[in-house]
């Protein structure tokens, strides 16, 4: 044991304590750095040699202290769980945002939503019924119908726009996933090289873990530990990042539903969580679902109104079935909005058995002659003491308008229950369109107040009874109003559920994040304590060095010296 070994021992102490102060300073400096894990020096005392050399001597006390390593406080398993929770939080947040957007664009309950428009529309029919001769009431009805159709159009269009916006957001999300995957692979590569070289990797790992977490949040990927401190990022069983190699995802919106594909082999990527997963659900399920529901409301409205407004039908009571005294019964037909041509059948006695069949065949022949064969079908049922039910249906893709031929009673006799406008023409549809986006007041009716079929062919010029029927559609339990309310209740429940699930997941994720922060976060108090602790140890080691110095001074300068 050398006389000078005490100095060496003091030196190791000074160095170790200084390192401790530096680490505390690093921790304090990064107290607010996202993703930073606090570090600590691991000190070990320098003791006896593990395998004593031959003839070596050992005095029994230690040789000082050394810094074994600087470790970071981070639990890799917690990181893996955090990735899952963050992925599912991002997906649920996206679902909640989507539902909120959908809810906002429906704008209910309000005085301007579709519900109020419907109420006003039905009331307008009552106004026409109360005063069928008043053109103003009819014009107002058409205005109201136009506004209602526009409300359907714009709501549908806003939903489609929301889907388009979400699609472009998905594009951005996927682009950021791909770039993060590249960065992560590079960090993995550096970590591997440093680990092999025995260099510290804590700070690189912190950066990498932060990135992995963001990647999981965006893509719903899971994280797996790999060799040399690296991590793999896996989506649905396929690696997005494997050690230092990253693949990429592409958005495929060519099919009916949007999917993400692997750029390597074009197979579908199973992205069901994360922001991207949430966006896919919005694009493929949530928004189209509400579009379909809105379409169903629009078509219900169209069908119910048209069913009362547009049919060509008649009901001939038993008392009027013997028309043998009438030489001919005339009416006029117009196919697809063309000019009117007169159809005529000879009056006959249709009251007996077989009357229905006879009337059907002569009517069919007359209609074929006037509107062309195959363009419309006549059906007659009943008779033999009960009323004859007559109906005339245009073939698919055709419209058929019908009116009286001058003062000839043929139209009102044969097709008395046909709703007609104040111009006497029946057979017009009120609404056209195949879905909410294309719902419109039919061109036959739009801008033509006289075309509103307020009454029936057999009912006189000021008959408003069909408008009464139309107004009462507001009370229909299978009508547009109730279908729309069902849509809104569904919307409310879905939004509420999405919000609650997102809140629950937020809380769970926050708990986990708190646990991570608790382990990895920097506490200033703690670092101050460490600082004081190392400072005191440093002071003491310096003091120790002074003592050795004094001892050596005594030994060298004062021992054996005679004064």
């Amino acid at each position: 044991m050398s006389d000078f070994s005490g100095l060496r021992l003091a030196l190791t102490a000074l160095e170790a304590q200084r390192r401790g102060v530096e680490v505390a300073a690093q921790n304090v400096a990064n107290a607010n750095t996202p993703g930073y894990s606090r570090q600590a020096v691991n000190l070990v005392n320098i003791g006896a040699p593990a395998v004593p050399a031959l003839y070596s001597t050992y005095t029994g006390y230690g040789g000082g202290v050394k810094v074994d390593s600087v470790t970071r406080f981070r639990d890799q398993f917690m990181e893996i769980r955090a990735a899952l929770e963050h992925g599912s939080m991002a997906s649920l947040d996206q679902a909640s945002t989507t539902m909120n957007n959908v809810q906002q664009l429906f704008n209910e309950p309000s005085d301007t939503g579709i519900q109020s428009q419907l109420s006003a529309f039905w009331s307008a029919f009552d106004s026409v019924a109360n005063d069928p001769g008043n053109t103003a009431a009819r014009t107002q009805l058409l205005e109201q119908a136009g506004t209602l159709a526009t409300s359907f159009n714009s709501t549908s269009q806003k939903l489609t726009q929301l889907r388009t916006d979400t699609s472009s957001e998905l594009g951005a999300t996927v682009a950021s996933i791909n770039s993060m995957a590249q960065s992560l692979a590079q960090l993995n590569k550096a970590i591997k090289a440093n680990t092999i070289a025995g260099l510290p990797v804590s700070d690189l790992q912190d950066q990498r873990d932060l990135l992995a977490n963001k990647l999981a949040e965006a893509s719903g990927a899971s994280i797996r530990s790999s060799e040399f401190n690296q991590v793999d990022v896996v989506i649905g069983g396929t690696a997005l990042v494997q050690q230092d190699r990253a693949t990429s995802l592409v958005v495929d919106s060519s099919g009916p539903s949007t999917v993400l594909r692997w750029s390597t082999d074009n197979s579908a990527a199973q992205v069901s969580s994360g922001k991207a997963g949430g966006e896919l659900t919005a694009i493929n399920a949530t928004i189209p679902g509400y579009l379909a529901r809105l379409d169903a409301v629009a078509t219900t409205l169209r069908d119910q109104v048209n069913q009362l407004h547009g049919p060509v039908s008649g009901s001939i009571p038993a008392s009027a079935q013997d028309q043998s005294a009438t030489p001919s019964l005339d009416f006029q037909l117009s196919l697809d909005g063309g000019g009117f041509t007169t159809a005529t059948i000879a009056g006959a006695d249709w009251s007996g058995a077989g009357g229905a069949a006879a009337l059907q065949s002569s009517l069919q022949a007359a209609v074929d002659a006037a509107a062309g064969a195959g363009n419309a079908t006549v059906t007659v049922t009943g008779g033999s003491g009960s009323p004859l039910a007559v109906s005339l249906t245009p073939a698919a893709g055709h419209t058929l308008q019908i009116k009286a031929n001058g003062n000839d009673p043929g139209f009102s006799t044969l097709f008395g229950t046909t709703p007609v406008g104040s111009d006497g023409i029946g057979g017009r549809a009120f609404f056209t369109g195949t879905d909410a986006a294309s719902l419109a007041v039919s061109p036959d009716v739009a801008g033509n107040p006289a075309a509103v079929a307020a009454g029936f062919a057999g009912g006189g010029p000021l008959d408003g009874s069909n408008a009464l029927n139309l107004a009462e559609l507001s009370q229909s339990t299978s009508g547009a109003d109730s279908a729309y309310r069902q849509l809104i209740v569904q919307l409310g429940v879905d939004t509420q559920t999405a919000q609650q699930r997102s809140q629950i997941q937020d809380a769970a994720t926050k708990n986990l994040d708190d646990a991570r922060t608790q382990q990895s976060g920097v506490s200033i108090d703690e670092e101050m304590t460490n600082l004081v602790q190392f400072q005191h140890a440093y002071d003491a080691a310096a003091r120790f060095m002074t003592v050795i110095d004094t001892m050596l001074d005594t030994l060298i300068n004062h021992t054996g010296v005679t004064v």
Partner: protein
Amino acid sequence: MPSSDFRMPNSLLMSNSLSDLQSVFAKLTDLQDQAATLKRLRKPSDAPADVVSAMQLHAGINRNTQYATNIGDASAWLGTADNALTSAVSQLQRVNTLVVQAANASTDSNARAGIAAEIDAIRSTMISIANTQYAGRPVFAGTAAGNVAYDTNGNYVGISAPVERNISPGQRVQVNVNGDAVFGTPGNDLFTTLAQISAAVRSDPSQLTTLQGTLNTQTTQVQNQLAEVGARFQRVSAMQTQNSSDAVTMKQNLSNIEDADIAQVMMQLQAQQIAYQAALEATAKAIQPSLADFLR
């Protein structure tokens, strides 16, 4: 140094304080919104079932308002018909008296000419009664488009058909009376009878007994129609009362569902404001000091 002890790193303290403040502030904002709009329901997700009830009530109230308009119109139509028929009956009673007078053997031809002139005058009054209009529409003309139900000669030009109004969900009331139902089918109508009576008074009083029988039958018909109009008028009046009370009930229900309880909201708002201030103060105290402040 690594330990499983509970650590409170500064960033955790910050994030916890922030999220606590945020949740208190979110509740405060919601209450302020309720207090400002005085509505409890602002979007479907606030309470889906209640929102739908509220929408249903809104639609119901709108519909009910339209029914009230319809009922008002129906009541005016029936009132007009009722007045017209009442005066028609009194005119017919006067004719009856005149016929009895004319049939009396002591009445001479001059006096009969006078009676006949009065009956002619009553006939034209009756025609104008039959052409009574409401809002420009003759109430006895059915669904015909013209201005009159009977022309100047007493010929029916109306189209007999019911004119109806929606007065409550699924309920309609006929608001018109068809001319032929009141005054008799063409050829067998009151105006023909009155003309025949006038002719008989002038030249052939012996026919008066038969004609008086016909007149009585036709007067009864008018009275029957008057009774029916009265009954319908009653029904419409009852519906009017029902309609107003429905409106009140629905508005009350809507308010119960949709409106915020002001007292409750204000109390909660006050409490939440205090909670928010407390949270702010607590946070301010907690995040300020660290050990660094106390080391020299």
